[in-house]
């Protein structure tokens, strides 16, 4: 079994055994991508493990009994190819630093596990998201740590028929922090400022924003599901200027994951954080306290609010902007109440 000569031989065997299916796949690949396969490392169907399996089980598989093993091997080969791309730098990022290959292979899979198994997220109204073109998702923010943002990106990516990536607008604190900053950029997020928001929206991206900001994530548990002030309405003017619709998005369940009882202010100040959370489990249980409580989540996308029918200069009219921000806020608040009734007990479902 040992020895250098063994490896290649065995490899040849395997290769020969599969050469039929390989040829079929090659033919399919050539038909699918003419010319030297624009390498698109993140083959749109490939990254989602489930989808990849479906594709692999297609033509040229000799018999069904091998299918399970083949799917496993397919995934292994995919992982190896991903590692090779990482080592040789053969992937692409956009001007904001969004690395789709990495996002689909490294970032989303663990989040998907949390999304499906831990929070059992139910997604409603995904048909309200357009298939393409710019759209601004406006959502409520809660939960001490911005897990809701991560779950929103999984919801849109996995449940929308076009698997649109969500480009989130985050606080500058995020991009200032080592490790967290680069990761946030790789996952497609950027700084919450009008320049970046409008650039993304004009580029036809699905952008999400949490206008409550830290006031929302860091609010005490006693104020759960009470929307905070919606900033200065900058998100509305960005949407109006780019002429994209606003889709209100209500997230139920994030409030219960880390019930915020208080904040240790001196510690927060020392660490440069907006608050230092105290929850029933954190910091008492140490790292164990960082495990979120398994609440039941619902994410609902509301009716889009169009902005392109407004008169010229509406983005510069504070009255229009405030009114629209208020109405979006009211819509989200109402659907939060409705979804809370629908959900019932936060943990027992």
């Amino acid at each position, binding site marked *: 079994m040992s020895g250098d000569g063994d*490896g*290649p031989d*065995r*490899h*040849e065997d*395997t*290769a*020969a055994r*599969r*050469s039929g299916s*390989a*040829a079929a*796949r*090659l033919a399919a*690949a*050539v038909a699918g*991508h003419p010319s*030297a*396969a*624009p*390498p698109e*490392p993140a083959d749109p169907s490939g990254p989602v493990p489930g989808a990849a399996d479906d594709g692999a089980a297609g033509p040229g598989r000799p018999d069904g009994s091998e299918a399970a093993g083949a799917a496993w*091997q*397919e995934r*292994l*080969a*995919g992982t*190896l*190819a991903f*590692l*090779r*791309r*990482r*080592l*040789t*730098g*053969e*992937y*692409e*990022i*956009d*001007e*904001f*630093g969004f*690395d789709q290959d990495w996002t689909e292979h490294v970032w989303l899979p663990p989040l998907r596990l949390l999304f499906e198994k831990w929070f059992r997220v139910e997604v409603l109204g995904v048909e309200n998201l357009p298939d393409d073109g710019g759209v601004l998702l406006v959502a409520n923010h809660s939960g001490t740590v911005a897990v809701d943002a991560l779950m929103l990106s999984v919801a849109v990516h996995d449940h929308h028929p076009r698997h649109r990536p969500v480009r989130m607008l985050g606080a*500058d604190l995020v*991009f*200032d922090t*080592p*490790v967290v*900053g*680069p990761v946030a*950029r*790789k996952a497609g997020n*950027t*700084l919450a*400022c009008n*320049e*970046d928001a409008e*650039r993304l929206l004009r580029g036809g991206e699905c952008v999400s924003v949490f206008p409550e900001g830290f006031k929302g994530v860091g609010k005490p548990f006693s104020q759960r599901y009470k929307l905070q002030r919606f900033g200065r309405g900058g998100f509305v003017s960005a949407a109006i200027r780019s002429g994209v619709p606003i889709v209100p998005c209500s997230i139920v369940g994030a409030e219960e994951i880390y019930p915020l009882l208080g904040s240790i202010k001196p510690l927060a100040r020392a660490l440069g954080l907006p608050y230092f959370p105290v929850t029933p489990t954190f910091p008492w249980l140490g790292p164990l306290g960082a495990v979120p409580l398994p609440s039941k989540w619902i994410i609902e996308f509301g009716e889009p609010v169009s902005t392109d029918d407004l008169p010229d200069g509406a983005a510069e009219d504070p009255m229009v902007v405030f009114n629209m921000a208020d109405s979006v806020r009211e819509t989200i608040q109402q659907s939060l109440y409705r979804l809370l009734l629908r959900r019932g007990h936060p943990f027992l479902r």
Partner: protein
Amino acid sequence: MTGRTILVTGVTRYLGSALAGQLAAHPDVDRVIGVDAALPEPAARARMGAAEFARADIRNPLIARVLDAAGVDTVVHASASATPASAAARTMAKEMNVLGTLQLLAACQRTPSVAHVVVRSTSAVYGGSPRDPAVATEDTQPRSVPGTGPGRDAIDIEGYVRSFGRRRPDVRVAVPRLAEVVGPTVRTPLTRLFSLYPAVPVLAGRDARLQVLHEADAVAVLQRLALGPFAGVVNVAGEGALTVVQAVHRAGRIPLPVPSSGLGLWARGLQAVRIGGFQPEVVRSLAAGRVMDLGRLQRDVGYRPAMTTVQAFDDFARTLTPALDRRLVRDVEVRLAGALGARPEDPWSAAATRPGGSGRVPAPDARSGASSPGRRHLVSIDGQAGGTPRRPGRWR
């Protein structure tokens, strides 16, 4: 109708000499005078072609006499904001950059024949705070202005250029803000950093975006600005972006995360054992993550760089000996997949036959043939018609 008479500074460097040569060959140009404080090396002299060389220090008022005597109508200050070749040259570079520009502009102001001035600037003027918008347009006001280093110098230089423009409103002034220039020929602190073998230090916990400009595009843009009608500030870079770590990998190197505080020690250590040094501030400046909006370049200047950031970087990277060869990585992948009984994924359809026809693989010819699509694949990553014939073979 008589043609233009152009003065180009910094002709001992690649950009100045190549620009002088190209302008000299241009039909609308009568005469090109390249100036520098030192004599150009033979290679630079060859690039200058038909351009004349005048040894003159731009910090010396003598430069005004050159302008006047030749009746120069266009001044291209290509050595402004040039990156110093070594750390020791930093003070010298600042002197040349800031004071040289000041003197040159003073000379231009006194010479009535001067009608066009192009002064090179750099993307470093945008600073690089994470609180700035991700993509800088020419109008972006950085939230934190660099206090020292090349960025500070470039801001000062742009200030002088603006006040020169106020004093001589009849002169057309163009200020291109160039991204880091890379290519097979130029030597900058950045290319030196990526030439470190086998590992390149990067700032731990930071992986910022990087935009570069190919040397040929840099020359072409400067030429267009010298001869064209554009006035004002314009961003110049290859389209798209890379991350620093990605660039290290594409150069066939291994990224070595070093905390910011350990960077100076590491640099001194390398210098002590004479492996070749790097400047800690270059590594730090790479953490800035500067990407520029290129709308104005295409719209108003009418130029679209021939090479994207990735292509430009690859064109530089192919001059390096990779520490981690792409082919080796691919081979390991194929071996590993084979050993585990999986069929390796095919990154390019042309090589898809490789696992099937593995009998041919050990033959050296078949091997290099099988991997050449890999190189094409790299070039065509941005959809450009890949496989320029010179590319294979130059890889070592």
